[in-house]
């Protein structure tokens, strides 16, 4: 008998407090790599608020974005709330798309471990994040250009004119593809800048997809909205090789997303799932952004997390050396 469930129960309730109501049909989509304690605790939390939880367990998919088996897809489509806790992301799957279009609220929790459910923000803190996120989203939406700088050398400008900002802070918000979605842990607000307009240098210093926690910062030169040069140490080479092998020409589009992170109860640990949400951090992405309002569809979407950035939208200082200034 695992005693960790005692610590987990408090945090497992949060996504339901924010998004569920009694009687909701909840599907918890796990696979055989998911710690059973994760779905067990989430299922208990759903039960506790009077929702109707159903857990589905499949074999792990081959990779991120691969489709679940038909019975799982059917279960997702027939639910009010879908929690994705499998070991691979279903974010870019048809099954997720159909479920969302059918009206389900999707909560992204892929690769969530039982440890990750023992800390985090509570429901009230998420509601505060949601208000702050909305405020920054409005700045993104009405802004024309963005400038990103850091002490390590980042100096990047891009146009965001005509682009809608978004915020996802644990409370599901409408997505451009229909339905609602959020993540857990959560807390970010961002914008997909206009493709082809970015110029400058982007230095990633904390965490990068497929590289993990970063020792030697990755310096990426951006010209006309595309990464043209990879510099740095091991991580820079790893990233370049990974995109060469697994990506396509659209994978180099950058920044396809600039997001300011808002969660005050998370710390940088070297784990992407939570590093992407730590308050004051910023993640910038390469590749796909058509799922949240951009025009790029690539095989890849790669986030890089950094600290101590300064972000100015038009003449509004939004982030000042990692401190939220609005």
């Amino acid at each position, binding site marked *: 008998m695992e005693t960790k469930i005692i610590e987990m129960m408090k945090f497992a309730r949060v996504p339901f407090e924010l998004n569920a109501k009694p009687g909701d049909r909840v599907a918890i989509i796990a696979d055989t790599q998911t710690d059973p304690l994760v779905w067990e605790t989430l299922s208990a939390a759903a039960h506790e608020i009077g929702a109707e*939880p159903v*857990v589905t367990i499949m074999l792990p998919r081959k990779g991120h974005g691969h489709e679940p*088996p038909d019975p799982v*897809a*059917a*279960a997702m489509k027939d639910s009010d709330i879908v929690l994705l806790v499998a070991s691979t992301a279903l974010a870019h799957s048809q099954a997720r798309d159909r479920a969302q279009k059918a009206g389900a609220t999707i909560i992204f929790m892929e690769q969530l471990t039982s440890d990750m459910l023992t800390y985090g923000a509570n429901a009230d803190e998420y509601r505060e994040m949601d208000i702050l996120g909305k405020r920054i989203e409005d700045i993104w939406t009405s802004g024309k250009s963005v400038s990103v700088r850091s002490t390590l050398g980042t100096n990047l400008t891009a146009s965001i004119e005509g682009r809608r900002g978004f915020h996802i802070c644990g409370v599901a918000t409408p997505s451009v593809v229909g339905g609602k979605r959020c993540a857990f842990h959560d807390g970010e607000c961002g914008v997909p800048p206009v493709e082809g307009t970015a110029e400058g240098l982007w230095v990633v210093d904390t965490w990068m997809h497929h590289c993990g926690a970063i020792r030697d910062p990755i310096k990426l030169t951006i010209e006309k909205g595309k990464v043209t040069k990879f510099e740095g140490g091991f991580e820079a080479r790893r990233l370049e090789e990974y995109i060469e092998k697994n990506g396509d020409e659209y994978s180099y589009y950058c920044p396809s997303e600039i997001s300011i992170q808002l969660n005050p109860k998370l710390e940088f640990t070297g784990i992407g799932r939570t590093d992407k949400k730590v308050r004051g951090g910023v993640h910038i992405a390469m590749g796909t952004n058509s799922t949240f309002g951009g025009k790029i569809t690539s095989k890849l979407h790669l986030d890089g997390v950094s600290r101590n950035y300064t972000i100015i939208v038009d003449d509004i200082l939004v982030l000042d050396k990692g401190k939220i200034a609005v």
Partner: protein
Amino acid sequence: MADRAFWYEMVDTATKYGRIGRLMKSARTVVEDCLGIKPGETVTIVSDTEISPLVYHTLSGAVTAAGGIATIVIMEPLPHASAEPPSVVAAAMRESDAFINVCSRTISHTKARYVAQFEYKRRYVIMPATTEDMLISGAATADYKKLKEVGLKVIDVLTKGKQVRVISDYGTDVSFSIEGRPPKNVFEAREPGSVAIFPGAEAPLGPVEDTVNGTIVIDRFILEIGLVSEPVTWKVRNGKVYEITGGREAEQLKEYLSKHGDENSMYIGEFSIGLNPYARSIGSNLEDKEVYGSVHIAIGSGVHYPPYYTAKYHSKTHIDGLMLKPTVFVDGKKLVDKGEIVGAPRF
């Protein structure tokens, strides 16, 4: 509570390390022999939080080993046997090539099952309330080829038969017509829309409604209530039970039916003969019904099976009552003699 009485028999399910090896044999029988799963077929294992994870994990492993695509679906236990499962579960059931029922409370007499099996032509295996123990001991250890031989003999007699009379030492004396109601073959589910029971086996049929008359004395077990300490008597007139008498269990049954039942809960819906000499009467919602030479008769939802897709009475409940050593006459000829099947001895 009366309707929680059967949980006790599931207590053995504390997982023992290494036990999976012994469970695997039964799991393979279900997947390879009963269902004949071929590579690429999707199988949904429907379970709930009262079932040992080892049961559905092992079944899922057997599906994967056979090249199938396994999905486990775990819900909360249903409020009573044959209550409708959540629509999320129903959706998963009808979108699989086959589905296996290992729920603590059966989903057998639900719309979700009828739609998945009959309309979507999915294969279905009935194994509700399965414990780890039930996959290792008792009915599961029988030689299934021999079991089928016994079964086909019984099925043959019942298929040709017109009139059945059941009597027992406890006072059962009930007669009904089975004309045009051949028993279901529940040994394997390899054809689209077919059904199997594991561990089996039995020969279930739906008697012609409204022809059932007499007295049924349940001497051993009632579904959802458990083993009976005192026989429970059902008086039947024109297919409907009009009086339930007996001791504590009779009271529990009445309470259960008043809580979960509906206007069709009292109609006789099923008559079945158990076939498995290795099955034990242990108060299990599955294994007891398979005991060799026993008879169970159910009130509530009728047996649904092609070509008789719709039984006359559908109800929210389906409650089986078990007689351990009855005598069964088919058109005046003995088919079961005090718990021994004539012409098909124990093996």
